[in-house]
């Protein structure tokens, strides 16, 4: 008898919880950030679609705390300014993002406005997942006039498919304490290729041929491959891609090979670096085992939270004949099934996300740089100790057009390993890299 009552009580509690959870969800006008709620969210969307005057936009971005929080705030403001439009935010962890997006497609569900890494955009465009930005709201000449030219990386088939709020560039992070310890002036970071090599050697400590402190962190799998493509190659006067983005011209100019050899000089003849040193470049730099690292503005937040005592500074990437750095960005697109009033709402939302005010707040909250030149190049940003060097680099920043970011990255990693692990001739490894990259591009364009 006792047991029966106990079960009944449990059942009752369960029912109450369920009801509370359901009603909580439908009452809650704020966006959901828990990925496990996706199913329910989508149901809500469908319900509110039946409601004539309420348009609900489904916005997806990856889980990055500062971005998610800021977006929650922005959505609230946007909803206040635009009664009748509701925006629901859904987040997935970065490494599951593509999977989650992909998994929703066959189910006919998914976002209306989606935040994508620019390198993924060609794959999404190719699959017919996105629609071009409406030209009346985003005229091409206006985009080209206001935004940094690097946004052209997602211009394909004569259309802009996405538009970013913010961009990131790579720069040189260096540890001031280790500079001083090695007798180097922490206020004059290396500015040229030769200086970077000299500094790296000075900052390296080895014992019995084993690296104890790396002068220059070197990790092709992290930012290393971007540094090679958009940094070193362009600095030496070379080009990775032809103007039509169909031909890999990396090997046409001796500058390509020169950059590749320079890049490899750190782990080879200079012996200042080692792949996988303290597992990866960021860990090595944070634990003060690496004195310098090429990394992005997106790392600043991590450093501030994980290593508040780390005494570091940032400088633009050392250049050679030219200055150049890599830029990358997360960018917003509208999915192909959005039409009519919903499309108008989505366009309005994109307009809001690319407004000057949002860009400034985005920098403060996430550390990502404004994508519009006029916003970024304000004195208060250019003179900033931390963000200044990144913003300074924006005018000469380049965002490589990826047909397949993962595979292109893997090819660079493989080329490096062929030299480092298998003792291949750098020229041979480089030619192979150019050739296999070309194959990727041929494959991509042949399916067009």
């Amino acid at each position: 008898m006792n047991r029966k009552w106990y079960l009944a009580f449990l059942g009752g509690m369960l029912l109450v919880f369920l009801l509370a959870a359901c009603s909580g969800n439908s009452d809650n006008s704020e966006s959901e950030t828990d990925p496990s709620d996706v199913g329910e969210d989508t149901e809500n969307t469908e319900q509110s679609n039946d409601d004539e005057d309420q348009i609900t936009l489904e916005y997806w971005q990856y889980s990055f705390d500062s971005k998610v929080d800021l977006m929650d705030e922005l959505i609230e403001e946007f909803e206040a300014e635009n009664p009748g439009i509701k925006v629901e935010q859904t987040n997935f962890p970065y490494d599951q993002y593509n999977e989650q997006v992909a998994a929703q497609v066959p189910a006919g569900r998914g976002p209306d406005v989606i935040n994508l890494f620019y390198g993924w955009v060609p794959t999404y465009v190719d699959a017919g997942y996105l629609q071009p930005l409406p030209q009346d709201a985003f005229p091409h000449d206006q985009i080209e006039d206001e935004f940094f030219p690097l946004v052209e990386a997602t211009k394909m088939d004569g259309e802009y498919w996405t538009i970013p709020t913010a961009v990131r560039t790579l720069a040189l992070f260096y540890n001031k304490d280790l500079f001083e310890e090695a007798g180097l002036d922490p206020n004059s970071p290396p500015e040229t290729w030769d200086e970077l090599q000299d500094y790296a050697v000075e900052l390296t400590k080895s014992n019995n041929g084993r690296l104890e402190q790396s002068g220059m962190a070197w990790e092709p799998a992290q930012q290393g491959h971007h540094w090679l493509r958009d940094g070193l190659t362009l600095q030496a006067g070379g080009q990775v891609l032809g103007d039509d983005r169909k031909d890999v011209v990396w090997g046409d100019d001796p500058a390509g090979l020169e950059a590749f050899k320079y890049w490899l000089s750190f782990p080879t003849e200079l012996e200042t670096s080692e792949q996988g040193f303290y597992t990866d470049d960021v860990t090595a730099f944070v634990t003060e085992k690496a004195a310098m690292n090429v990394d992005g503005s997106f790392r600043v937040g991590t450093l501030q939270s994980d290593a508040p005592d780390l005494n570091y500074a940032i400088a633009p990437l050392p250049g050679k004949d030219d200055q150049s750095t890599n830029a990358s960005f997360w960018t917003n697109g509208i999915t192909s099934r959005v039409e009519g009033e919903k499309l108008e709402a989505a366009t309005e939302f994109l307009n809001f996300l690319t407004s000057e005010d949002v860009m400034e707040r985005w920098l403060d909250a996430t550390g990502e740089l404004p994508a519009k030149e006029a916003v970024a190049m304000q004195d208060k940003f250019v003179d900033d100790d931390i963000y200044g060097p990144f913003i300074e680099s924006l005018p000469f920043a380049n965002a490589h057009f990826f047909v397949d970011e993962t595979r292109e990255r893997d090819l660079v990693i493989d080329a490096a390993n062929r030299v480092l692990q298998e003792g291949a001739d750098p020229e041979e490894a480089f030619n192979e890299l150019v050739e296999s990259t070309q194959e990727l591009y041929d494959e991509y364009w042949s399916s067009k």
Partner: protein
Amino acid sequence: MKTHHNPSNQTETNQSTTTNKPSLMTKLKGSQKRQKYIFVYTCLLLPILFYLGIRILPTLFTFNVGFRDWNLLSSDAAPFVGMDNYVALFQDEVFIRSIFNTILYIALGVTGQLMFGIIVALLLHKINRFVGLFRVIYFIPYVTSIVAISWVFQWILMGNGIINDLFVKIGIPPQPFLNSPDQAIYVIIAAMIWQSIGFQMVLFLAGLENIPEMLYEAADIDGATPWQKFWRVTVPLLNPTIVFSAVIGTINFIQISFTQVVNMSVDGSGGPLNSTLSIVVYIYQLAFRQFDMGLASAATVILFLFILGLTLFQMKVLTKKFDY
């Protein structure tokens, strides 16, 4: 379920109409025995429905997808392309490499796992004190998170790790381990073996308990050496356990080689130079990095046939009848 019970219901109704008009309640309730069966079948059916929906039907669907040009992000119809995906896979160097690696993972991993499992079980079978303690120690790796173990191994094995420190102290040059295309796969296999010893140990201990002591006594009387006793008594009688362990170990190995490889390989995707790439990792990359479900499904079908063939082979070759 309905179809199953309809005929019996009808016969009963027919019978009852001839004699007496039955109440609705009796019709619904049926005999108590039948009610009990309905309950049991319902309970059994629910998991089966779930299993059908979540495992069997998607598995069958994979065969279909394998013959199509199916881009996961595209909502357009996926055209039927026949054997194209299979042809593409067998022309793909990386896929061939992943098959080769998977065979290596299984051959070395399962053998090592069985060998060490038997050794540890035999040793534990011989001792009387601290048996519980040792069992716990050997079993702990098996219940520890693979991700955590993988990262600990990475740190132990890195250039400045503790193993290389020891090497340098005793005069051996430091080794690249996970950074080397020649060593990485063996390092990962070793970590996997280390982790699964505990599981195999438990299976073999149970198997050893079941061998009657009198067989050893008889062998002693015949003057058998320990070695002879092992090969003539222990191994044959452990045979069912060995077959079971080998089959389960193989399937397990194919499954967990994913987590291990993703977490231990230098670039997180089977590197360096694809030297640690297993079929499952490659299937994942095809499906969720390149969104090519057609290729991924074709690779999955090949993996299925591979496991099927291997299991049948193991059952045939390893299972022997011993009469005593």
